[in-house]
């Protein structure tokens, strides 16, 4: 087993062991913390597809995270109020079913990524970053000024949504569900990067003109990656809103985009488990340093600086050494 595989296994083992311990020790807050980490990991895994393999520095992934959140919020809001989402030309009602909410979250985020990508991919470098950021701000201000769904105050959902066969109100069951979703997505992610598409995408990041001269369209490859990326982050958004039973424009803010990017950078850009390690470290730092000082983000900044300056490839890279995931 390679060192990277060892790091990945260790991360997975901890994600299983810690909540089991917390259950045994009756520490429900630890389970909530772990759930938060797992959902952040999922959001970052989404970004990693665009950033790590597609080379697209998207500073607007909060759009997808927030859309996922609002997909949950809006559907559950109408379900708990027994009002239809729309009446005409046909009736759409709300729902409290997670699978349906996830589907809506992923589709709406994918569509948003398609639209943003079509425009942003006409540019590159700093302009790409600025366009994704600008779109993020647009959606953010739209959400703030739309009173139907709480505007600035956000939307509260009274009861967590349901999943067949589970009692999602029990923290450990909801945690298990989130962890399972993360594992499925990481598994698919691993398949994706080893696939013909992954190979082509990887080359489109490094030498787009080469990809073109062997008959493939690098922009379309990247756009597809961005759509997949957005859908995954959207799914994470739906879970995050369900964890908090609350969604607000904060989920759409540029700070959120920045945090998602920080998870990926801490853990390791273009590493399968980079987002997982990054999100877990972030949540730990937030919890422990946040308890010590209000200015914990200064420490976070220092940690980030150290990683960017001295550890190419994030924490996973520091431990596992060079070489990306596809070998």
């Amino acid at each position, binding site marked *: 087993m390679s060192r990277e595989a060892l790091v990945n296994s260790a991360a997975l083992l901890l994600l299983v062991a810690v909540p089991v311990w917390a259950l045994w020790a009756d520490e429900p807050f630890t389970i909530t913390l772990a759930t938060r980490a797992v959902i952040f990991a999922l959001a970052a895994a989404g970004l990693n597809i665009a950033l790590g393999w597609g080379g697209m520095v998207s500073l607007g992934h909060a759009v997808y995270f927030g859309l996922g959140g609002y997909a949950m919020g809006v559907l559950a809001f109408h379900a708990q109020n027994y009002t239809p989402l729309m009446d005409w030309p046909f009736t759409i009602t709300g729902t409290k079913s997670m699978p349906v909410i996830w589907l809506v979250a992923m589709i709406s985020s994918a569509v948003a990524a398609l639209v943003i990508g079509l425009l942003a991919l006409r540019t590159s470098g700093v302009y790409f970053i600025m366009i994704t950021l600008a779109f993020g701000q647009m959606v953010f201000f739209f959400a703030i000024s739309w009173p139907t769904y709480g505007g600035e105050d956000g939307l509260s959902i009274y009861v967590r949504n349901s999943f067949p066969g589970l009692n999602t109100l029990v923290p450990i069951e909801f945690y298990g569900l989130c962890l399972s979703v993360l594992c499925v997505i990481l598994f*698919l992610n691993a398949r994706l990067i*080893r696939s*013909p*598409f992954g190979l*082509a995408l990887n080359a489109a990041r490094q030498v787009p003109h*080469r990809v073109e*001269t062997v*008959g*493939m*369209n690098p922009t379309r490859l990247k756009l597809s990656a961005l759509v997949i990326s957005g859908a995954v982050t959207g799914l994470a958004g739906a879970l995050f809103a369900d964890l908090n039973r609350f969604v607000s424009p904060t989920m759409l803010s540029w700070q959120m985009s920045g945090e998602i990017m920080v998870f990926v950078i801490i853990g390791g850009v273009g590493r399968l488990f980079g987002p997982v390690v990054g999100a877990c470290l972030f949540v730990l730092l937030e919890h422990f340093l946040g308890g010590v000082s209000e200015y914990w983000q200064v420490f976070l900044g220092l940690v980030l600086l150290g990683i960017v300056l001295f550890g190419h490839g994030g924490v996973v890279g520091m431990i596992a050494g060079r070489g990306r995931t596809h070998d």
Partner: protein
Amino acid sequence: MTDDVLVTHDITKSFGALRANDGVSIDLKRGEVHAIIGPNGAGKSTLIAQICGGLAPDSGTVHFLDHDVTAETVRARARMGLARTFQISALAMEDTVLQNALLGALGAAGRSWRMMRNVLKDTYLCGEALAALERVGLADQAAARTAELSHGQRRQLEVAVALTLQPRAFVMDEPMAGLGSEGSKQLTALLDELRWQAPILLVEHDMDAVFALADRISVLVYGRIIATGTVDEIRADPVVREAYLGEEA
């Protein structure tokens, strides 16, 4: 079908006031190596870009396999079998040698939308890629990271990627660039074999390679073809000697 695989007719391309190509007409026939020589800035790379589709000519046409491809994209021409190598190696440095070769096979087979199958388990693609690596003498480096290859090996890999396209014509921009004399000799021997697979339009500064390989040579100076002929004819041409070869003597 005529003997002409690739034809440019009266191609003109200006950058502002600069006429980089001024009425360039050349053709590439089955089984031949047609070399384009000329001093730096003569417009050779500009010509190649128009042949391969990266630049659109201001006027004139490009025909490939008896189709007018002047308006076709780089991708469409590549899929028709126009295989190009770059003056500066365009390889995915983080990937392995095999993965780079696979890229060409993948493009040719149009399989880039398969998302869930392991590309290394696709026996067809791997067969194509390995055969190309075998051909250029890189089979034993298949698992190496491209960044670890020597400059000469990268030039060979560049040719291997072109080979995986199942080419009908090669367009090579200074494949010998930066190679030592040993590397040049090796690559010359390889190109000499490849011409039987598909004709080669060869832009090259290395005169030993050009004289060894070329069936015909065209001389491009200030965007114009000033002479086309066999190696002996070009060597003997006084205008060429003055305009180009002379400065080397």
